[in-house]
């Protein structure tokens, strides 16, 4: 089977677009908190959030327009990092975004189809798709991109996820009671919700042999993908984490690995009461009594919605490169009511590991898992 190499990436996060600052942020914080508020017409729609630094946020305008601009910038930076000055022939794009095509506030028409605009401005001629499964969209998009390469339908794929905070998100999550009153505390007994975040990342994926032949450094590999569904409740994850169990087991099998070979799990871990019940149950089921080191970087990054998985993929890649697992910030221990997992608390945990797993779940029940391996450029 075709191996999928990552030969470039770019990201933007509440800590900026610098890797050292990002790593420092997810390992030690502090979370750059801001107050987000909607237009004066909706004074009640506001919240604390981890927003992009003003100098890196797209200029003012309708949300969907700014998400397109951010995506375009990330794609161009990714190509540049891999040594391209223009889109190579056959390049495609798979993007996870929740609000890029689903928030028309401020427009007198639905947001224009995102893909057509990006195809034109970036010169893309290959497979293009946005995936709409909310907070699991980024992993689903990267999985779809991997399949296009495995099946020979594309020569190279840009893939990832991008989102920004907007009025519909703030109002919807406030109404659902899922936002924290302070800082997110995934897996802790006093967790009370997530912090909205924003940003995203785009990766350049290509067949391993093609990258080797071209002399492009292989930073990492996506060696396993898997999807599943809870099939339980529209807004509440299944208590046994059945969807997450299925997606993790399928990804591990897809990678040809055993659970024991996974050295770190970057959990979905938004910090809501309901999520952690099912997610810890799923991790305990898949990894058994031996366990696996787990953390949620959403405690540090906030929940960037459609961009969350891609930012977490950056965290996974940096963990592989640094041979260190980031902790879950803001907590001192695991909620004893949860299934026991090896949650990294307090400080980053060094080790020797070659594979990491990133788990994502969405409201509505979809779950997607990616497994990353360290590439020779970072060995």
């Amino acid at each position, binding site marked *: 089977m075709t191996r999928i190499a990552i030969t470039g990436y770019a990201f933007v996060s509440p800590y900026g677009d610098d890797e050292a600052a990002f790593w420092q942020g997810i390992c030690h914080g502090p979370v750059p908190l801001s107050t987000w508020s909607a237009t004066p017409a*909706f004074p*009640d*729609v506001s919240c604390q959030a981890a927003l992009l630094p003003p100098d890196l946020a797209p200029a003012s305008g309708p949300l969907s327009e700014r998400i397109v601009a951010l995506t375009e910038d990330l794609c161009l930076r990714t190509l540049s990092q891999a040594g391209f000055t223009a889109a190579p022939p056959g390049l*495609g794009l798979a993007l996870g975004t929740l609000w890029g*095509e*689903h*928030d*028309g*506030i401020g*427009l007198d*028409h*639905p*947001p224009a*189809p995102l*893909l*057509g605009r990006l*195809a*034109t401005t970036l010169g*893309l*001629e*290959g*497979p*293009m*798709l*946005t*995936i*709409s*499964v*909310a907070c699991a969209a980024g992993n*689903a998009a990267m999985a*779809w991109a991997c*399949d296009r390469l495995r*099946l020979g*339908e*594309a020569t190279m794929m840009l893939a990832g996820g991008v989102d920004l905070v907007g009025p*519909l998100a703030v*109002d*919807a999550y406030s*109404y*659902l009671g899922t936002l924290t009153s302070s800082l997110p505390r995934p897996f802790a007994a006093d967790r009370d919700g997530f912090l909205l975040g924003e940003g995203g990342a785009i990766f350049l994926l290509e067949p391993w042999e093609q990258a080797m032949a071209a002399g492009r450094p292989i930073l990492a590999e996506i060696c396993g993908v*898997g*999807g*599943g*569904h809870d*099939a*339980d*409740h*529209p*807004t509440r994850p299944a208590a046994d984490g*059945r*969807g997450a169990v*299925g*997606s993790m087991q*399928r990804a591990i099998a*897809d990678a040809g690995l055993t659970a024991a070979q996974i050295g770190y799990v970057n959990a979905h871990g938004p910090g809501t009461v309901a999520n952690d019940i099912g997610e810890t149950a799923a991790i305990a089921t898949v990894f058994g009594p031996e366990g696996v080191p787990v953390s949620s970087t959403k405690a540090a990054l906030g929940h960037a919605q459609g961009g969350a998985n891609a930012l977490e993929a950056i965290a996974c890649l940096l963990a592989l490169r640094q041979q260190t697992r980031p902790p879950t910030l803001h907590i001192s221990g695991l909620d004893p009511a949860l299934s026991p997992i090896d949650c990294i608390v307090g400080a980053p945990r060094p080790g020797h590991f070659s594979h990491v797993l990133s788990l994502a779940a969405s*409201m*509505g*029940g*979809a779950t*997607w898992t990616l497994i990353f391996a360290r590439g020779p450029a970072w060995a």
Partner: protein
Amino acid sequence: MGIGLLQAGSLATDPGPQPLKKACLNARQLVALTATWPELEMGRLTGIYQAAGQEKGLVTQELDQLFTTHGGLHLLSPVAMIGEYLPYGPFARLAMARQCLGPFATHCGDELSAAQALTAALADLAAGRCEQAFVGGYRRQPGAVWLMLLGHQEAPPLRWQARYTFGSQEPQPADLGALAADLGRSVTLLPPAASDDILGLDRLAMALRRAQAGEAVAVWQVTADGRGLLVGLAGGA
């Protein structure tokens, strides 16, 4: 055993009153449709591959109107917010109703969505990531839903190839030739989808049936800005 089309069908749905606290898409009808299919066995790992075309825009407009008219989304029940106002909501309901625990994705590729959803389902079935696959989509106005169920059956293997193109509103002879070469035989290009064909799903089902009968056929979908997808299906020896 080969991958094949087990069932396909569509039905009208009740759009319901606005603003909505009740189902815009009639989930009971959706479930009733699948329940009449004897081939759909509960307990088999089933994936859902939704095609979402321009319907996203209509959903977005309704959500925006609710927000701006009423100063928030509080008129919606939380279940309705997820089940009706996110593009994947109705199909998440299907997963819950039929216990579909396999991969779930909503494919938003504009006019290519249905072919992309179908090829994703075929790939997952072939890779053993699911045992059955729903491929479907809906049209909001007038309300209608369309579903097909794919699975393994006693039949010759079904082969497929997808070729993405750019810059043309018609499939080029070179692309058809390459598709035929990939499939190892000449292919018949099916005519464009009828205007009432939801996302072109009915035509894709017809292509599957003809391929299962031993033909080699191709279906072309294209966006206004020239993104094209040519899907070839071939059955028989």
